[in-house]
C-alpha cells in the first residue's frame, strides 16, 4: 500500500477534486505484482495508473527509470506526457517524464538510452527496440512499474503478444517489477488478466464504477440513406447542424477511404467555414500533428477520423461522437462513445449515422445491444509463433542467451503460457537455420550455438534485425507529396497497388484534397493541387472488422419481427420490397438468390457470418464452381452476404453447400488461396524470413525483392511441413479465413437452403454491387477475360 504525500492531498483540494474510489484502490494495491483496472473512459484511469508512481517518486530518492508506460498509439504518449506534466509541475515534484516513439529524434533517443528519465512513455515497438540493445540491462536497471494503457485494444493483436514477451524479458531484468493494466469496459476481464499476469502468478482485477449509460441515438436525416455505399454523405447537412450545436465533435469512420471521401464532401458543404480537420493513419506526420495540436487548443469544431483516434486520447472538450457507418462490434462502439464527455459520471453523447439502408438495420440492432449492456467479443487464442520467432531474434540481437532460460521466460507470458518445449525448439531452429527439411545453410546459419548458448553468427546482423522489429505489416505504401522545386510538402501515403494504376493526369483524394498525379520521383508520388475534378479514391487496406456474431444474430432477429416500427420508414419499406420480391434471410435457413446482371450470372449468399467468413465462403464456393466448369470470375463479400459472378449460373446452388464436401474440400483449398498468401506474407515478415521493404531499398524503382507468393508456392511444393506454413494456417484460420464462423453457419442452417431464382437484382443484393474489395478468381474464366482484354488493347493500338 502506498500513502499519498501531503502535497497530493493539497493539490487535489486546490483543484476542488477528490480522489476517486478506484484511484484509492489502486494506491492500496500498489504492491500487487500484477493488477488490472477496468474503468470507463473519463474515469481518471490514467491518473489511477500513475498515482502510485508519482507518490513513490515524490521524495526524489530514485535514480534512473522507475515507471515505463506503454500505449498502443504514439499520439497517446505525447498526450499523457502533457497531462502528467501539469500535476508534476504544480506539485513541484522532482520527476522527469519523457516519451519515446518512432517519431522521437535520433539524438534524443540516444540520450534517453544513456540517461533514462524517471517515467518513460512509449509504444510496444519502441520497447522491443530498446530491449534489442546490448545495454538493455543498464537502461532498465531500477525499473519498478510498467503501466500498460488501453490493454483491451493491445490484447486483441499481435502487438499485445509481442508486448507480453517484452514484459517477460523486463521481469527477468528487473526482479520485483510490478505490472498494471488499464482497460476500458470489456466482456471478459479475466481473459485480459490472464494475458497480463506473469505466469504462473495471478493478476488481480479492480472494477471502477461503470458510470451512467450513454445518451445514444440514430441521427435523423431528411434524405434517406442511399441504397448502397458507405460514405454517409447524405447525412452531411444534418451532421453539420450537429457540429454547430456542439463544442467539439468527433466524426468516426470505419475506413480511411471513407473518411477521405466524407471530409471532402463535408468541406464542400461547409458554407459557414466551421474549422474542421481530418486525422487518419495514412496522413503524413506533419498533417496529423497539426490536427492534434489544433484539437488540444480547441481551435477545431470537428475532426473526421478513423481508428487512429479510437483510443484514450484526451482531446479536451469533445461533447459529441458521431459514428458514420455501422459499428460492426458493440464493444468498440461503446468505447468510441466514451470519447465524448471526459467527465466522470456525465453521460457520453453519441449519434449513429447508418451509411446505407442495410446499415440502418445494423445500427438499430447495435443500439438495442448497447441498451441491453451486452458486449461482444471472441475469446483470444494462443500467441502466434511468428511473434515468438521475432522475439528470439530480438533477444539474440541483445546478446547470447541460454535456451532453457529463454523458454522459461517466454512461457511466463500469458499468450505463451501453454507453449510446449517442442514448439519453442522449432521456432528456435527456424530462426537459427531456416528450419528447412533440406539443411542447406549449415555454413550460413543466422544463430550459432557455442557452449550451450545461442548467439548471432554475424553480430552485424543485429542492425538488420532492429530494422524489422514490429508486428504491424502494412501493404506496401508509397509517399505522396506536392510537386515543387525543393521537393514539396508531404501529404501522406497510398498503397503501391493503387499507385501502379495511376497515369499522369489522374486525380485522387488525399488528406481531404483533390490532387493530380504528375509522376514518380525516386519512388515518391508527385502531385499538384487541383480542385473540382471528380477524383478517384485511394485504396487503403486498413483492418476491416467483421460484424460480431452477437450483432449478426440481433439483425436476423430484427428481420424475424413482424413489427418494424423501430426502423425508419424508408428502411422498413425496403425490407418489405425484399419480402415481396424474394425472401428475408432467416436464422436457421440459408437464402441464396440467383439473377442475371449486366450480362453475367450472379449468385448472392446471405450467410450472415461476418466479412472474413463470407470472404472464405466466396473462395470456397468459387473453387467448387471452377471444378465443375462453371467459370466464376470473381466475388465480393460483406458482413452479411457474398456475391459471386461468372460466365455460367449454377444449375442447383444448394448442391454447392453440401457441408461434408465443403469440409473435405477445405484442406486442399486452404493451401492454394490468396488469403493464405496474404497471411503468409505477414507471418514471413514478422518471423524475419523476409525483410520489410524500407523506402530506401525501393528507391531505384527496381524490385530487388520479389513477391512473397513465390516463397509460399515454393514452400508448399518442396517443404509442406515447414513451420511458417503451420503458423500461416493457424493465423489464417483464426483471422482472415475465420472458418469457425462458416462451421457455425452450416450448423445453424442444417442443410435448409432456400434458392430464389430472380430475373433481376434483389433489393437486398443491390448494395453489394458497390462494395470495394472485389476478389478476382484465378481460373479459366480469368484467363479468357485476360485474353479478351489484351486483344482489345492490341486492336485499339492498331497492333492487331
Amino acid at each position: 500500500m502506498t500513502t499519498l504525500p501531503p502535497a497530493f492531498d493539497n493539490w487535489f483540494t486546490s483543484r476542488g477534486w477528490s480522489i476517486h474510489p478506484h484511484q484509492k484502490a489502486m494506491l492500496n494495491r500498489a504492491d500487487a505484482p500484477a493488477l488490472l483496472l477496468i474503468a470507463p473512459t473519463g474515469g481518471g484511469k490514467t491518473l489511477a495508473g500513475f498515482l502510485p508512481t508519482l507518490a513513490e517518486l515524490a521524495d526524489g530518492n530514485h535514480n534512473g527509470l522507475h515507471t515505463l508506460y506503454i500505449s498502443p498509439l504514439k499520439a497517446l504518449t505525447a498526450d499523457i506526457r502533457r497531462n502528467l506534466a501539469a500535476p508534476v509541475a504544480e506539485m513541484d515534484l522532482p520527476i522527469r517524464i519523457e516519451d519515446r516513439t518512432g517519431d522521437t529524434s535520433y539524438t534524443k533517443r540516444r540520450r534517453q538510452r544513456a540517461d533514462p528519465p524517471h517515467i518513460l512513455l512509449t509504444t510496444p515497438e519502441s520497447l522491443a527496440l530498446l530491449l534489442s540493445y546490448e545495454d538493455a540491462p543498464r537502461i532498465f536497471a531500477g525499473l519498478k512499474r510498467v503501466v500498460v494503457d488501453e490493454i483491451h485494444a493491445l490484447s486483441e493483436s499481435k502487438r499485445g503478444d509481442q508486448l507480453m514477451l517484452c514484459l517477460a524479458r523486463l521481469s527477468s531484468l528487473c526482479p520485483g517489477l510490478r505490472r498494471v493494466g488499464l482497460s476500458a469496459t470489456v466482456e471478459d476481464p479475466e481473459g485480459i488478466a490472464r494475458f497480463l499476469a506473469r505466469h504462473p502468478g495471478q493478476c488481480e482485477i479492480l472494477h471502477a464504477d461503470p458510470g451512467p449509460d450513454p445518451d445514444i441515438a440514430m441521427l435523423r436525416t431528411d434524405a434517406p440513406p442511399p441504397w448502397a455505399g458507405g460514405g454517409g454523405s447524405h447525412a452531411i447537412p444534418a451532421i453539420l447542424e450537429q457540429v454547430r450545436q456542439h463544442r467539439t465533435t468527433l466524426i468516426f469512420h470505419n475506413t480511411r477511404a471513407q473518411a477521405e471521401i466524407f471530409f471532402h464532401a463535408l468541406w464542400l458543404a461547409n458554407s459557414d467555414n466551421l474549422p474542421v480537420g481530418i486525422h487518419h493513419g495514412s496522413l503524413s506526420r506533419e498533417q496529423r500533428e497539426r490536427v492534434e495540436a489544433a484539437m488540444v487548443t480547441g481551435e477545431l469544431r470537428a475532426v473526421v477520423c478513423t481508428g487512429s483516434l479510437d483510443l484514450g486520447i484526451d482531446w479536451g472538450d469533445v461533447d459529441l461522437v458521431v459514428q458514420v457507418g455501422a459499428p460492426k462490434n458493440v464493444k468498440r462502439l461503446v468505447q468510441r462513445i466514451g470519447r465524448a464527455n471526459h467527465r466522470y459520471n456525465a453521460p457520453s453523447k453519441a449519434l449513429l449515422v447508418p451509411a446505407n439502408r442495410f446499415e440502418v438495420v445494423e445500427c438499430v440492432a447495435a443500439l438495442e445491444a448497447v441498451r441491453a449492456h451486452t458486449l461482444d467479443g471472441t475469446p483470444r487464442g494462443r500467441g502466434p509463433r511468428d511473434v515468438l520467432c521475432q522475439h528470439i531474434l530480438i533477444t539474440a540481437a541483445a546478446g547470447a542467451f541460454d535456451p532453457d532460460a529463454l523458454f522459461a521466460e517466454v512461457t511466463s507470458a500469458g499468450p505463451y503460457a501453454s507453449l510446449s518445449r517442442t514448439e519453442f525448439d522449432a521456432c528456435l531452429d527456424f530462426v537459427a537455420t531456416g528450419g528447412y527439411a533440406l539443411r542447406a545453410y549449415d555454413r550460413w546459419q543466422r544463430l550459432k550455438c557455442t557452449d550451450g548458448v545461442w548467439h548471432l553468427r554475424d553480430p552485424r546482423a543485429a542492425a538488420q534485425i532492429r530494422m524489422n522489429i514490429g508486428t504491424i505489416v502494412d501493404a506496401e505504401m508509397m509517399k505522396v507529396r506536392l510537386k515543387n522545386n525543393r521537393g514539396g510538402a508531404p501529404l501522406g501515403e497510398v498503397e503501391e497497388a493503387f499507385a501502379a494504376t495511376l497515369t499522369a493526369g489522374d486525380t485522387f483524394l488525399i488528406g481531404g484534397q483533390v490532387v493530380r498525379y504528375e509522376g514518380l520521383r525516386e519512388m515518391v508520388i508527385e502531385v499538384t493541387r487541383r480542385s473540382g475534378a471528380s477524383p478517384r479514391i485511394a485504396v487503403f487496406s486498413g483492418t476491416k472488422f467483421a460484424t460480431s456474431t452477437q450483432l449478426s444474430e440481433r439483425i436476423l432477429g430484427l428481420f424475424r419481427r413482424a413489427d418494424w416500427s423501430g426502423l425508419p420508414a424508408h428502411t422498413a419499406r425496403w425490407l418489405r420490397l425484399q419480402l415481396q420480391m424474394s425472401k428475408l434471410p432467416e436464422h436457421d435457413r440459408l437464402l441464396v438468390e440467383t439473377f442475371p446482371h449486366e450480362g453475367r450470372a450472379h449468385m448472392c449468399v446471405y450467410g450472415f457470418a461476418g466479412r472474413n467468413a463470407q470472404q472464405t465462403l466466396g473462395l470456397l464456393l468459387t473453387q467448387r464452381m471452377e471444378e465443375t466448369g462453371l467459370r466464376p470470375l470473381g466475388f465480393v463479400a460483406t458482413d452479411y452476404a457474398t456475391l459471386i459472378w461468372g460466365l455460367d449460373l449454377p444449375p442447383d446452388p444448394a448442391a454447392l453447400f453440401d457441408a461434408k464436401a465443403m469440409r473435405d474440400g477445405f484442406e486442399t483449398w486452404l493451401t492454394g488461396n490468396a488469403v493464405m498468401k496474404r497471411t503468409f506474407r505477414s507471418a514471413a515478415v514478422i518471423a524475419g524470413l523476409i525483410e520489410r521493404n524500407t523506402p530506401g531499398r525501393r528507391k531505384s524503382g527496381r524490385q530487388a525483392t520479389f513477391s512473397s507468393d513465390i516463397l509460399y508456392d515454393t514452400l508448399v511444393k518442396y517443404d509442406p511441413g515447414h513451420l511458417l506454413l503451420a503458423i500461416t494456417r493457424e493465423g489464417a484460420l483464426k483471422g482472415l479465413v475465420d472458418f469457425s464462423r462458416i462451421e457455425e453457419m452450416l450448423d445453424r442452417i442444417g442443410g435448409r437452403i432456400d434458392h430464389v431464382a430472380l430475373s433481376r437484382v434483389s433489393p437486398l443484393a443491390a448494395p453489394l454491387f458497390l462494395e470495394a474489395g472485389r476478389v478476382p478468381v484465378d481460373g479459366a474464366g480469368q484467363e479468357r477475360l485476360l485474353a479478351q482484354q489484351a486483344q482489345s488493347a492490341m486492336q485499339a493500338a492498331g497492333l492487331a
Partner: protein
Amino acid sequence: MNGFDFSLSGAALTALPTGALWWAEAGLLAVSDLHLGKSERLARRGGTMLPPYEVQETLSRLEADIAATTPDTVLCLGDSFDDLDAVAGLNAVAAQWLTRLMAGRKWIWVTGNHDPGPTQFDGTHLAELRRAPLVFRHIAEPCAQGEVSGHYHPKARLGRISRPAFLIDADRVILPAYGTYTGGLRCRDRTLQGLMGERALAVLTGATATPIPFPRN
C-alpha cells in the same frame, strides 16, 4: 505450346509462356537471368534464409522447356548464377542435374553482371553470341538491331494482373527473368521506356503468352 510467334530481323521466334525464347529454325532455346544460388548468396551475406529450393524449381522448369523443344543449343543469357561463389555453393544434386541437362547438346553461357566470368561448368563461355541475323547479349545496347537480351527482368501489367514479360520491338527483344526468385522492373521505368521503340509489345508470361501494347508513360 501457347507461345507468341514473332519475327526479329527476319528470324522467326516464339516467346514461350514460361519466359524462355525458342528459335525453332536454329534449334536454339534461350533463357535469361536464372539467378541460380540466390538464396545461398542472401544467407551467406547474413541476410535471410529463404526456402532453399529455388535451384530445384528453376531447373525443373528448364528441364520441362528442354523436353518440350528438344533444342540443339541452350543459351543462358547472363546472370545464370547469382554470383560466382554461388556456383561453388550449388549442392551436388543440383550440379549433377545441371550437368545432365547439358549433356547431348550445345550449351552457351553468356556472361552477365552477376556472373562476370567462366564457371566450373562446361559449355561455351562468351561475352556475347552473334548468329546472323541475331546477336545475343546480357544487357541491351541502345542502337542495336536484331538483339536478344535480358538483365532488366521486365514485367508488365494488364488490369490488376502484373507478370514477367517479354518486351519486343522491331530491333530487339528483352527476355523476362527465368529464375524462380527474381523480382521485376515495370515497363514504366525510364530505361525501358527509352530502350523500346515505336509499336513495341509486352508479352505476358503465364498459362498463355499474352501480347499487349508496351505501356507508355
